[in-house]
């Protein structure tokens, strides 16, 4: 069997999370103007500073144009054809899980994220977000004993307004880019994490994002703050139903690490990617940025990206603190007609700051996968170092891979290294494995996971095996 035929068969598994939950939702009508922004803010009973934040963002957004520099092709998005507020109808502020609609609990059960007391994932606290609204957060009590705050963004605005006001928009300013401005104006909910001074968060924190609606845009906002010497590991998971239409997802994630703090942010993204002809799927336009504000602070992004019809995403670290460390480990797999334009931004400001970028792109089917990354060395970044490695693997002969590294240095004593490689799954590797009794599909996923090993090694233990399985599943049908 040839590798092309092998790849063909790997691509045929149905998406397991494609179901829709029937639940009553509260929706406003389609379209966006200033009154919609005010309505969202008032529905959420927000304080004045939040309303002003949103209105300012909306005003900025109106002056901005959708970016067109990415290597992505998609029909124009009609921003007036999107619903900007949709929430499952349930009692206000659920004090306990018993008050959460059973249909929602069942949904998360089906997704493998049990929320109920008895079945919870051990040692992982979960914030479950359904159509951009947080419906439950587990282990809140236990975390509170350590002073850790883990709640929905909506609750944080009510209960910790001073923290939100201080940090929201401090890493990704409201006018940062078109999609960030849109998110700042209309974001519905998301997760909030605060780790006090000197606290090592006692368990993994996780947010699970579920899109359910076919016409509502998804705008979550995540903010994680780690005070001095604090540390936390956080994981984000995402799925969506299968629709013929495309759904817009424009999230913003901001991380702030103070002196000696460390934040590890991992993503296993499995939104619906559209069918094999490219119909349907999520448009994922996401801004993720971490600020290494303090000395020796460390922020690490690890991502496994397998879903979305379109991915536009450049997680970054602003390394302001002296000797701070930024890391980016990424596996982006595209199949069928998926398009991904993704990479890392490392902005070195502080002296002695270091960053590492390891990116593995795998393109199969008719997909296109571009790495686009920025390394910037500012004038103060004496002795700063970056190492970037971008490897692409092509499966079959219809897929495309590109690498666009942008390197800017204003500091002669800073070091930037960039390595890039492209490989195919070679017929000889495939044959070697087959001649040892291994079936072509298993052989291809073995080769792909070997290719991604450096990145999988960075994922939290509980999720590394899952990522491996997810990749195998996504590749099924690409071998025949």
């Amino acid at each position: 069997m040839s590798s092309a035929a092998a790849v063909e068969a790997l691509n045929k598994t149905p998406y397991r999370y494609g179901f829709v939950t029937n639940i009553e939702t509260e929706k406003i009508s389609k379209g966006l103007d200033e009154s919609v922004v005010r309505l969202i803010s008032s529905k959420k009973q927000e304080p004045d500073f939040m309303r002003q934040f949103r209105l300012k963002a909306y005003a900025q957004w109106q002056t901005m144009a959708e970016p067109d520099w990415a290597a992505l092709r998609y029909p124009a998005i009609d921003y007036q054809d999107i619903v900007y507020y949709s929430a499952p109808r349930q009692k206000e502020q659920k004090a306990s899980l018993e008050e959460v609609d059973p249909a929602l609990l069942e949904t998360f059960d089906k997704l493998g994220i049990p929320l109920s007391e008895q079945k919870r994932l051990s040692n992982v606290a979960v914030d479950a977000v359904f159509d951009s609204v947080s419906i439950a957060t587990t282990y809140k009590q236990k975390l509170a004993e350590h002073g850790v705050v883990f709640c929905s963004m909506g609750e944080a605005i009510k209960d910790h307004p001073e923290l939100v006001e201080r940090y929201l928009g401090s890493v990704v300013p409201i006018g940062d880019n078109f999609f960030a401005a849109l998110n700042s104006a209309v974001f519905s909910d998301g997760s909030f994490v605060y780790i006090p001074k000197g606290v090592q968060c006692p368990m993994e924190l996780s947010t699970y994002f579920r899109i359910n609606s076919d016409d509502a845009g998804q705008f979550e906002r995540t903010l994680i703050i780690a005070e001095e010497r604090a540390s936390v590991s956080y994981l984000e998971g995402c799925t969506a139903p299968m629709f013929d239409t495309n759904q817009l997802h424009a999230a913003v994630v901001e991380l702030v690490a103070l002196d000696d703090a460390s934040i590890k942010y991992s993503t296993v993204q499995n939104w619906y990617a559209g069918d094999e002809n490219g119909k349907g799927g999520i448009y994922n336009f996401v801004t993720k940025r971490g600020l290494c504000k303090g000395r020796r602070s460390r922020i690490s992004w690890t991502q496994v990206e397998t879903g979305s019809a379109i991915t536009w995403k450049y997680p970054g670290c602003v390394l302001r603190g002296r000797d701070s460390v930024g890391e980016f480990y990424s596996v982006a797999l595209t199949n069928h007609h998926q398009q991904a334009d993704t990479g890392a931004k490392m902005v070195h400001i502080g002296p002695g700051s270091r960053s590492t970028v390891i990116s593995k792109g795998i393109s199969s089917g008719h997909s296109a996968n571009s790495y686009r990354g920025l390394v910037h060395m500012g004038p103060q970044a004496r002795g700063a170092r970056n190492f970037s490695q971008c490897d692409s693997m092509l499966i079959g002969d219809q897929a495309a891979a590109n690498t666009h590294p942008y390197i800017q240095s204003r500091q002669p004593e800073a070091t930037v290294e960039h390595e890039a490689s492209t490989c195919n799954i070679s017929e000889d590797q495939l044959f070697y494995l087959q001649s040892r009794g291994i079936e072509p599909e298993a052989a291809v996923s073995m080769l792909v996971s070997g290719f991604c090993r450096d990145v999988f090694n960075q994922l939290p233990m509980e999720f590394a095996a899952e990522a491996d399985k997810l990749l195998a599943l996504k590749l099924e049908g690409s071998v025949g």
Partner: protein
Amino acid sequence: MLLSIENLHACVEENEILRGVSLQIRAGEIHALMGRNGSGKSTLSKVIAGHPAYTVTAGGIHYRGQDLLALSPEDRARSGVFLGFQYPVEIPGVSNLEFLRVSCNARRQRRGQEELDTFAFEDHVRETMAIVQMDPAFLERSVNEGFSGGEKKRNEILQMALLEPLVAILDETDSGLDIDALRIVANGVRRLALPTTATLLITHYQRLLDAITPDFVHVMAEGRILRTGDKDLAMALEQRGYDWIDETNGSDTRQP
């Protein structure tokens, strides 16, 4: 009859490489296949194992009475045909242990044996590694990545020992080995040769055949087996070179 090759013709792209190979191999036999580079020895081994780059245009191969060419490469391996590669490929990021376990279990499943979990397999593989005097540290490394030539060859013999094939074809497993490594490999091959199995050694050198005495020696040229004899044929070749075969068979098979 374990393996029966009849008038086998095969080509890669448009070039015919095998031009009517016939070879019969019975259980308990050791065969040596010799010949110049380019005579078709490696091609024969790859066609037996099912490499997709080669097309069989005439003739056939029967394995235990079954049409071998109808089977996929992985099926051939599972049913007991093993090819030890001349140039084993490197597979970055895939641990040798995991690769060996998946491979061994695929064969075990076919033979109706229970599959071994990670722990049981690790015990099993450590014992087996002693046969080829391989350091267990190689289990943690990526398959063949950064292995020396000799280490790669030992890894091949380790795979052979784990898969317990009925027909083992070793393609120049002795090439590039120093004397010690050669002895280790030869010992491994000898220990694994049983009355129920057969071995086909593809080699250029008498020194491997000093350690493993073949029952038959075949000399290949221009895609055919020109001469078959016993171990004395290999000795004669060592002394007189391939030209001698060419002369005794007429000059049409001579290469520039």
